[in-house]
């Protein structure tokens, strides 16, 4: 079971909200399926993100994938260290490998709790 102090999108982003600030990242399941990550592109502090729209891109050696925002709002902090330390996504996806902190104006209706999100992580 993934941490139950946060919520999840079916596209495998996680979102933890504290005092109106959302910290977002991607789950261990997403990381394991991307495998061999080589590039991460994140937006700049001060720009805005929109629910359901791409906020960045990640490249594994065999696929480029979009990252989708579970919230709308202004980016107040970017984990720039992560782009040079992509191994954190494998070793600590729910803490050290956070990607953005966002001052939230609205939340996606598609967010699921940890238990419901597990249903999206069935291998098949």
């Amino acid at each position, binding site marked *: 079971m993934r941490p139950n102090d946060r919520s999840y999108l*079916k596209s495998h982003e996680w979102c933890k909200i504290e005092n109106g600030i959302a910290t977002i990242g991607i789950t261990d399941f997403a990381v394991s*399926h991307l*495998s061999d990550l*080589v*590039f991460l592109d994140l937006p700049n502090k001060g720009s805005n993100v929109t629910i359901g729209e791409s906020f960045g891109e990640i490249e*594994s050696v*065999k696929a*480029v*994938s979009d990252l*989708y925002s579970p919230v709308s709002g202004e980016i107040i902090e970017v984990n720039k260290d992560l782009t040079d330390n992509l191994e954190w996504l494998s070793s600590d996806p729910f803490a050290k490998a956070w990607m953005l902190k966002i001052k939230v104006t609205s939340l996606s209706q598609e967010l699921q709790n940890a238990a419901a999100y597990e249903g999206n992580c069935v291998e098949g």
Partner: protein
Amino acid sequence: MYLRVLDDGARPPAENMAIDEALLRGGGLPSLRLYGWQPHAVSLGYFQKVDDFADLPIDTVIVRRSTGGGAIHHGDEITFALTLDANLLPKDLDQSYVLLHDAVRAALSDLGVHCTRQTTGAACGARPDVRWCFATAGRHDLVDAHGRKLVGSAQRRLRNEHARVLHHGSIVLHKPALTPFVAAIADQIEVHANRTKLRGQMVLRIAAALNLTPQPGTLSDQEHATATHLIAARFGDPSFRNAR
């Protein structure tokens, strides 16, 4: 379910990339597009730095792909773009490459071209020390008897509520001028007599691997419109090509 087959001619680089992106984002039926390049061009992997290619001849046409990996000099080749819902491919990224590359290998074998799929080694990525896609062969790549890469490929994946995949691949017919180290179909068989047959076998083998029925088709008006927009806004825009 049908596999729409778009047996295209040679188009300008930005148009080729825009059509593939329109097919990816359009969300329609699975499509397999086979095409060429006029003029010949270098496509950069999505994350590659254009400055790393400053040594190319001044008249080199460069376009940025939406798929990753290393750069490719597209000369006389068959390029294929498979666009489909992600659930029509194995969930596992590696297994999706195995499925598609085995289909391409079978198509090549049908014409007497021998190659094998590498099952070990790191997959190739767009790292600064490997700027050309075909410079090194890694896991899943199709290689000739000398270990030289014969088919290069990369994917773009949309993981939102309508998860889609664009799988780009290049089959080199004759060695391109900028990357003469690659393997080519012409090393093994006469190309001119087999060009059309290879395209046909590609369609049959990929459709069979996906359990789909191939059917010739054309772009929809909406796909045309999206591609036209993407040429102006993205793939034909120097700021996109030079963005990294």
